[in-house]
């Protein structure tokens, strides 16, 4: 029963990575993982670290569950998935506390809440349980990055308009709004750093995406 070996990066496999970036985006199309997208996007640095952490967890949980998929008893599969996800999240949390202490303080409880991020359980149930490890890894990376991109876009607008700065990991805070604008009476928009504006920013991104890709618009 030798099946034809598929190349590692066949068109079908690549689609697993690219689809979640656009037409299958977990945040803007499937509207999953919204809660953390609101919470950690007031500054760019925590958003980037969160994106990396979530990608790590989606990739490895997809991989591990896919490896175990034929051994997991159906009745406790959700529990098994949760244990795997929770273990990975705790590892991420511990690593951040050891090597990115400042950022871990900013992310505080939201690293722990990756466990409840709907994207992760969603991908495990919908994909990893019925696909091979390599495809699952690609799917995990795709969804993690798809989530991360939106997070970074939201954080970029919120930080530039709300604080007038850009904070990148390792580079510190850069002031991007020239001082002269402030002298002329420009004010940072304090509303941007509050959670409601994150929701509105997500809404605008969804709007822009749907205007450009008519396939996403539901027909009546």
């Amino acid at each position: 029963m030798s099946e034809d070996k598929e190349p590692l990066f066949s068109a079908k496999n690549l689609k697993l990575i690219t689809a979640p970036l656009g037409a299958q985006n977990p945040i803007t199309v499937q509207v999953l993982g919204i809660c953390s997208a609101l919470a950690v996007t007031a500054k760019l640095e925590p958003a980037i670290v969160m994106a990396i952490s979530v990608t790590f967890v989606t990739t490895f949980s997809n991989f591990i569950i896919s490896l175990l998929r034929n051994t997991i008893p159906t009745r406790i599969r959700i529990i098994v998935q949760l244990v795997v996800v929770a273990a990975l999240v705790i590892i991420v949390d511990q690593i951040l506390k050891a090597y990115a202490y400042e950022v871990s303080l900013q992310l505080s409880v939201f690293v722990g809440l990756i466990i409840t991020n709907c994207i992760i359980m969603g991908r495990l149930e919908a994909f990893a349980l019925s696909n091979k490890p390599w495809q699952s890894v690609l799917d995990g990376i795709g969804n993690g990055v798809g989530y991360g991109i939106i997070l970074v876009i939201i954080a970029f607008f919120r930080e530039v308009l709300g604080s007038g700065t850009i904070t990148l990991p390792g580079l510190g805070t850069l002031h991007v709004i020239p001082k002269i604008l402030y002298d002329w009476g420009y004010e940072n928009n304090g509303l941007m750093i509050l959670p409601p504006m994150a929701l509105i920013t997500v809404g605008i991104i969804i709007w822009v995406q749907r205007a450009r890709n008519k396939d996403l618009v539901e027909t009546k």
Partner: protein
Amino acid sequence: MDRQGNTYTFLYASVLVVVVAALLAFVSQTLKPIQQKNIEVAKKIDILKSVNIASTPKDAEEKYEKYIGNNSFVLNYDGKKVEGDAFTVSLEKELKKPAKDRLYPLFISNIDGGKKYIIPVRGKGLWGPIWGYVSLNEDKKTIYGATFGHKGETPGLGAEIEKEPFQKQFAGKTIFDDKGDFTSIKVEKGHNTSNDPHAVDAISGGTITSKGVQAMLQDCLSGYKKFLKE
């Protein structure tokens, strides 16, 4: 073995849990020393910041050694020195005790031509704990500098207490009035506080956090009254 049977399910769950527990215990043990170090360094950065010394995680240890070092002790309510290491006293635990039984850590720094007394403070904000360090001049009543931190106050509102504009208001204020009575520092809105020696301006939209700072200063500084009046 039947993959859907009870025995298999129980065995599977048990093995999984043991493996995961072992893995997590290993990770936690391996990373613990580095995490402890981070917490210590962050505390040193905060203490140094209260006497206006900027430091980064890289040079904090060195600067702490230079400006403070072992120059710290623990006081009791009567202002007498007692046994203990000021750096390891947990304010969180001390504040649960009645004021008379608490330990009062104190750090001393010699900079800017005089002794500075650094007092750690801790209290409640809107969403979680807030804390900070207040440094007093050698006269033991004029504030030299103050720094505050918080766990989860709202960015742009309560979280402004960790920003410079709020903190630099404290320099030059006094916590005792002319008669020598303890006044603490009020954090108030609505009047010009720049001429008031015992008040600073609160944060708009951060009322509860501002009140938390006021209560924290009142609560924590008052325990040092006896020592400061000496």
